[in-house]
């Protein structure tokens, strides 16, 4: 049975209450951190653990913490990014809903390590019931003396604020999140300066994903080396993967990083294989922003080795034959899926969610959406396919925040690997526009 860091007690009845959570060994990390460790020691443990940011970019968390500027007399902030709104990703939602105290414990430990006396959890506005769960949990923790003034008699104060989000995907980008938290329009900021220097209210700020923060209690309790022993190479620890699509058992799974993709899809312990009578066609491995991969490339690397569920292995081969682990939104598609329609759905999402601040993303996402819509509805031509590739190239890397890249990558990748389907839509408009139609030509299925 693989080690479970985040979901070990998640099925215990009443784990969302303080008593049960405490009985299962909760809040011991707070006691250990505040009474026996210095903030520097905690940062050092997190560095040793090699845990990488779970929000999508995979930046080493300890390194991010050590970049935090510490000028005298200026408050520092920790902000938890719970604005999870990427299509295909629903792990933070699951974690907060079922085990809110784990996040709160992580927030206390992390805030102490960073020297923050006021920390924020920015929760996606649509998840109002989760906000109520978190607020109830905070009240319980406060009543038990784990939050507020003079925590456990150590003299450390922490105020934890849950902030409902502004209702936009872009507010999950860290600088847009900070703007939104300040009460402004959620537009990403130009970088530099980075939040670690000038973040919330122009003060040094660390923004971390829910899952990243939820890992810290375990790291404090068991040490960074024990965490680093899990996983493979630079992908240490476990990762929550939210699986959706045509598998037998969709849901959220905590996997040790390093199992093979094939195992993950077909083993009974995880997804349990593709639904009966169908075959694997394609996978979007890390939420809608990462490039889609066809079945043969997701299961094996270009050199024939089996692909693993790690940051490195999934991005092996660059974007030509690889993808990214991203935020762990694992979308599995069988042969009944129309890749063009799927790409259109993503494009429409990014068109809707672009903040409209910088011109390539504002105009480009709308353009790609409209062109794809035309192709999908049988009114496209061959020129449009190359146009899409070119527009995606013009957006990629030229925008303020990564939303432009996130909009361009899935479209470029879908055309790179499934160009024949786009061409089929152009050449067979009558067949392609039938309800539920999907490409039926030659496909490499597994």
């Amino acid at each position, binding site marked *: 049975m693989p080690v479970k860091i985040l979901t070990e007690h998640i099925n215990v009845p009443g784990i969302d209450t303080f008593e049960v959570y405490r009985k299962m060994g909760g809040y011991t990390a707070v006691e250990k951190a505040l009474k026996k460790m210095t903030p520097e020691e905690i940062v050092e443990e997190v560095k040793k653990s090699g845990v990488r940011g779970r929000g999508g970019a995979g930046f080493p968390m300890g390194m991010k913490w050590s970049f935090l500027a510490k000028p005298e007399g200026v408050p520092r902030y920790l902000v938890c990014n719970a604005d999870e709104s990427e299509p295909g990703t629903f792990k933070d939602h699951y974690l907060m809903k079922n085990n809110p105290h784990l996040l709160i414990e992580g927030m206390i430990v992390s805030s102490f390590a960073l020297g923050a006396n006021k920390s924020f959890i920015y929760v996606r506005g649509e998840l109002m019931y989760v906000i109520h769960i978190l607020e109830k949990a905070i009240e319980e923790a406060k009543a038990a003396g784990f939050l507020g003034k003079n925590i456990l008699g150590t003299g450390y104060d922490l105020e934890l604020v849950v902030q409902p989000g502004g209702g*936009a995907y*872009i507010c999950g980008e860290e600088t847009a999140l900070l703007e939104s938290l300040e009460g402004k*329009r959620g537009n990403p900021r*130009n970088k530099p300066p980075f939040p670690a220097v000038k973040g919330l209210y122009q003060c040094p700020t660390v923004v971390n994903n829910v899952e990243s923060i939820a890992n810290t209690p375990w790291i404090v309790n068991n040490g960074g080396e024990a965490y680093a022993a899990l996983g493979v190479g630079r992908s240490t620890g476990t990762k929550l993967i939210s699986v959706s699509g045509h598998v037998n058992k969709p849901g959220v799974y905590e996997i040790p990083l390093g199992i093979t993709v094939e195992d993950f899809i077909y083993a009974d312990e995880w997804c349990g294989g593709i639904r009966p009578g169908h075959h694997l066609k394609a996978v979007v491995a890390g939420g809608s922003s990462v490039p889609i991969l066809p079945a043969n490339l997701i299961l094996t690397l270009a050199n024939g080795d089996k692909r693993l569920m790690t940051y490195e292995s999934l991005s092996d081969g660059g974007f030509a034959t690889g993808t990214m682990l991203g935020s762990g939104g694992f979308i599995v598609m069988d042969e009944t899926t129309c890749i063009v329609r799927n790409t259109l759905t993503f494009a429409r999402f990014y*068109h*809707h*969610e*672009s*903040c*409209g*601040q*910088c*011109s*390539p993303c*504002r*105009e*480009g*996402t*709308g*353009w790609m959406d*409209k*062109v794809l819509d*035309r192709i999908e509805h049988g009114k496209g031509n061959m020129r449009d396919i190359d*146009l899409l590739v070119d527009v995606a190239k*013009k957006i990629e*890397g*030229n*925008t*303020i925040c990564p939303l432009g890249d996130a909009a361009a990558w899935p479209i470029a990748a879908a055309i790179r690997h499934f160009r024949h389907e786009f061409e089929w839509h152009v050449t067979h408009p009558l067949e392609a526009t039938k309800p539920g139609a999907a490409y039926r030509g030659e496909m490499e299925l597994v």
Partner: protein
Amino acid sequence: METTAPQLFKITFDGIEIEVPPGTTIMQAARKIAEADPTKMHLAPPAMCYYEPLKGSGGKCRACLVKVSAGSAKDPRPMPKLVPSCITTVQDGMIVENTTNEAVVETRKGIVEFLLLNHPLDCPVCDQAGECHLQDFAFEHGRVQTRYEEDRRTFEKQDIGPYVQLHMTRCILCYRCVFTADQITNKRVHGVMNRGDHAEISTYIEKAIDNDFSGNVIDVCPVGALTDKTYRFKNRVWFTKPVDAHCDCEKCSGKVTLWYRGDEVIRVTARKNEWGEVKEFICNTCRFERKKTSDWTIEGPMKVARYSVIMANKYRADLKKPEFGLKVAASQYKQIDDSRPFVTDNSTIRELSKENNAKANQRSLAENN
């Protein structure tokens, strides 16, 4: 005690070396080069959203993206992405490629295309035509044709206050007017609503802008989205004669440019520098209500420095030559075929004309039948 001269950073911009104080942006360094030598005016990266007098502007339009091929003398690695020159500060030993880099030129073409996607291109009826930054930008950096076949977004025209009209359809969302309203007036009443390509500049629920400096949003607007209602459809900017003038004003510096058509002042604007940026903001009384020559002390003709359509009938020797036009002319130029016999004697001419007449008669007969 030794006097320490402020340390200067040496950077190379398109092969030209210049020394600038730390904290300067790449854009400012490039403009310094152009100010020192007006023939290098075209080297400065274009700016659609950056506006030096407005704090926090820049970084949005991506028109000024440049390639940094060496970050600094200490760390000469190139920057992985193109960077916006208006907000990127220089480092000692930085090497910047602007017009010399293929990727930059190509990206800029893309930016023009993006900005024009939802722009109505109604220049023939737009008051801004002739002094429009988007027009200049598209002319200098864009491609000839668009590949956009879809519908453009449109908005209804809105009156914001008694003097300003907002034509949102033309807007390129540079946020300059938002910064202006934020920074030079004490009450912010307008901003951006919605998001993506359906975002719009709006006074909150169409609340009229009511303060003394609201007219400056017209001057900062790079396109014809915010126009002067006292000037709308009065004239084309290239037919008018700009004259610098001043008056004693209690509210502002009173330094303005008057735009004459004949003897009539048809428009008053703030004075702008060669980058199209307002030097000193002026109040609404100067802008909208003092429209008689007797209100003003005339200083002399305005120096038009910016290369644009306003220059059409105001020649200057140091202007950049229209390379594009010359290229087209060269490609269409044909050598006259002088190998034909040069006919001079009358009899041959008569013969030829007879022949031609006969042919013409036949043609008209055939057409009539």
